[in-house]
């Protein structure tokens, strides 16, 4: 973003990166921050678009979109589609975006039953009369958690729960150099 708060930034036309957490835990973003002082180097190379780390509300036209988390509710799907429409290269970051991750363990259960068990049914600790939230402001959960590639095309997968900072750095620097990221022993892991 330019000093005047606009997205002009056309003078140098740095690559733009957007990031988002869908049904994520923000752990992949924390692992991204674990690149530590390399963040200063990255800040010279790129401009950040929509991200939990910026104040932009919607994703603009970007070169790279990093998506953490699977899809667990309707808003996740809307946001993912916006990212796919605006990002030239979309990366599924972390186990959740790749195969649903641990949140997909709810797929063996009925989502209605889960909500009742948590918010209703006289669960100990809840106030009397508590029930499942029903305001239309709230996005409805999907029947099952899905990996993002089941809804949009994904260009690259960056596995790990979370991927290590070195893996994330290797991925971003490869993409900025116009190469497909490759991860060798030690950088590729699923846990």
């Amino acid at each position, binding site marked *: 973003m330019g000093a005047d708060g606009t997205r002009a930034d056309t003078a140098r036309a740095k690559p733009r990166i957007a990031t988002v957490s869908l049904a994520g835990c923000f752990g992949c973003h924390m692992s991204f921050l674990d690149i530590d002082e390399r963040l200063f180097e990255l800040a010279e190379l790129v401009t950040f678009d929509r991200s939990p780390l910026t104040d932009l509300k919607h994703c603009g036209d970007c070169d790279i979109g990093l998506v953490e988390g699977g899809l667990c509710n309707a808003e996740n799907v809307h946001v993912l589609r916006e990212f796919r429409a605006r990002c030239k290269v979309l990366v599924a970051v972390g186990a959740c975006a790749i*195969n649903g991750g641990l949140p*997909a363990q709810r*797929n063996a259960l009925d989502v209605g039953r889960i909500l009742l068990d948590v918010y209703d049914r006289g669960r100990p600790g809840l106030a009397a009369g508590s029930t499942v939230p029903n305001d239309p402001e709230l996005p409805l959960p999907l029947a099952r958690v899905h990996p993002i590639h089941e809804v949009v095309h994904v260009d*690259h*997968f960056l596995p790990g729960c979370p991927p290590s900072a070195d893996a994330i750095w290797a991925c971003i620097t490869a993409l900025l150099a116009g190469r497909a990221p490759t991860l060798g022993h030690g950088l590729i892991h699923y846990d």
Partner: protein
Amino acid sequence: MSAGTFKLDGVDVPFDDGDTLLAAAQRAGHHVPHLCWHPRLGQSGACRVCTVRVDGRWAAACTTRAAAGQVVENRTPAIDGQRRLLLQLLFVEGNHFCPSCEKSGDCLLQATAYEMGMTGPQFEEFYQHRPVDASHPTMWLDLNRCILCKLCVRASTEVDGKAVFAIGGHGVGAHLLVNSPSGRLGDSAFADSDFAATVCPVGAILPKRRGFAVPIGQRRFDCAPVSAQVEPQGDGEGGHGR
């Protein structure tokens, strides 16, 4: 006495009469990616991950007899690409949520996927929900992780002499069965000292109350990729399990 040699990726590999390509290659210290083969057990040919090209034709290295002068291609980008595809199919078929699996870092399926550079599944997830069998006092089964390699079936039958396990069902419904009146592990003759209790290459047959015991960084496949760890043979001590 060597019965001759074949070429594996250009290297001469000696073999004995009756050897399969896979057995001879592993004994000579060459890694042929595999999941359903074990040096102590009979052949299966279930996983197809050991598929190689023998004199230009596709063949499972675990079921193909070695013959003098064969030219075998093993680790080529095209063959590894086919293996990556097979692994992706196995991953979406089960619930392979490695972040919470006690076998992570010690799992042959996972290590082989790392070796093949598998980053994403690219296929739709099946999301199995087979119930956990925790009926046995010291062992438990998570059949959502089972890859139907049949190592436990063969170990229980050929080594333990118990025939605790079998595969039942058809097609995508095929699954591991326990041979007991109730179908539960606790009602079978299974014991944690059985060979079948240690042979599972993934996190489907696990000991109770013993998980996450090895620090990250020291687990079997943290230390070196699977291709650098050709299993010791013949003593049953260095198989896939721990």
